[in-house]
């Protein structure tokens, strides 16, 4: 009997959560909790005061401002971000997450996608490369098992020197074992913001850009629609490009294209 009652109570409370509109709930409690990266400069990192700052925390602050509520940032990592959202530990997830069909099954990825990341090259400023086709026969450091290694070898004829970790590859780049380092463009941005790598640059266009999506819990159409409108407004006003400028990130082709698409509407 007790068990039955407990089951009923749980069912009722679950139903209650499902039917409550999260958008209203956030406004009612006055706080928006957003999961962001804290280890991915300049998209989300800790400043010397220990606060999480970066492009994605700025986006989160913008959302909170639109809702007229306070912002609370929760650091997440790739392995726990979806679970945090599912369990309601966070209301919104903006954490360098690629938009994939598998993730779409678990959470509601809001469209349009807000950013995109692909592969690019980190090279010394003294090296003058203007196009990917100049890589033929050039030794390029890389990370073993990166999915784009084969493409760069086959398409551009680069001679990959692949290491097990980023530290080894960067040491090899520094020691002249290769003329460039092949890696995710957004991660290269992070390295370039480090004064240690001030003599290096990312002069080429990012290739094979995969879109990043921000996500809300499934079954929250009102909140998802609000976020979708927010992203469109960011694209329309060029807010993402402003943030790229503010955080010294090279202007991405994706943000420029989205701005062009929505600026007219």
């Amino acid at each position, binding site marked *: 009997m007790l068990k039955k009652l407990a089951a009923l109570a749980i069912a009722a409370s679950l139903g209650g959560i499902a039917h409550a509109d999260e958008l209203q709930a956030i406004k009612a409690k006055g706080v928006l909790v957003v999961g962001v990266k804290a280890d991915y400069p300049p998209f989300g990192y800790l400043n010397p005061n220990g606060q999480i700052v970066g492009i994605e925390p700025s986006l989160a602050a913008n959302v909170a401002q639109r809702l007229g509520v306070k912002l609370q940032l929760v650091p997440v990592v790739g392995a726990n971000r979806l679970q945090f959202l599912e369990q309601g530990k966070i209301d919104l997830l903006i954490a360098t997450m690629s938009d994939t069909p598998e993730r779409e099954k678990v959470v509601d990825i809001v469209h349009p996608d807000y950013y995109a990341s692909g592969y690019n090259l980190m090279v*010394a400023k*003294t090296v003058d490369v203007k196009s990917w086709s100049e890589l033929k026969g050039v030794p390029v*450091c890389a990370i073993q098992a990166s999915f784009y290694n084969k493409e760069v070898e086959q398409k551009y004829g680069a001679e990959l020197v692949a*290491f097990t970790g980023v530290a080894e590859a960067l*040491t*090899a780049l520094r*020691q*002249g074992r290769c*003329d460039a380092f092949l890696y995710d463009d957004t991660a290269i941005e992070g390295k370039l913001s480090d004064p240690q790598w001030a003599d290096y640059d990312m002069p080429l266009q990012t290739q094979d850009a995969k879109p990043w999506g921000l996500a809300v819990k499934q079954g929250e159409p009102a909140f998802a629609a609000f976020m979708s409108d927010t992203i469109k407004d960011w694209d329309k006003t060029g807010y993402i490009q402003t943030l790229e400028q503010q955080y010294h990130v090279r202007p991405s082709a994706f943000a420029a294209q989205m701005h062009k698409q929505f600026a007219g509407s």
Partner: protein
Amino acid sequence: MIGAIAAWFSHLNDTTGINFTIFYDPFDASRFLQGFWLTLALSGVTILGSVAVGVIGAWGQGSPFMSLRAIVRVYVELFRNTPPLVQIYFFYFGLSALLPAGHNAFGMRQPLIGGFAWACVSLILFAGSFNVEIFRSGIEAIPVATTEAAESLGYTRLQTYRYIVLPLALRICLPALTNNLVNLVKTTTLAYAIAVPEMLYVSNQIWSESENVPEMMVVLFVIYIALVGVLVAAMHSWERALRVPGLGR
């Protein structure tokens, strides 16, 4: 024939999902073959080099000069007591940074010694340190009376080593030497850490792209078993060919 094999493996992938890309994808096939040749080259160079180091080191160990004995002693302790992966990293990233370097077309620093050469150097020194001790075990098994007999016939120390001690010692220590060389062939896989595209390195690239880890593992196992099998067979037949009736009995 080759076309038929490729078609069969391609068909195997389509029907069962068992994906041996190296048998039907020309790009994977060519780099795997290059990896195989590089493993053979690494093994060959390091086997010859480490045996040479062992022969010379063992001779130095018996030298009347204390300083030479001390150098061999330090070398053996240093390279026998440290992990080979650490040694490879030390040479490639550590020592190499201190050596003079040239400049490439972009005017950037370019080390003169590449990954393959460093892998050979470090593997030769690693296996060589064991070989020194292996040859010593053979040398110490030679009765003093034998060397004394050589001495009384007017042989110098080097001549005694070259014509009497080493040939006999080699026969005694061959089984231990075979062991160490088998280990050396397997240790060449560590060269993947400094981006020498040997067999494990290319397999790693292939399986991370085609997600066929079990298939590539099977291929690696089979090829290494075959490689080591050939080496062991060669060493055994050498052992039989060198057999001196009565020695060591």
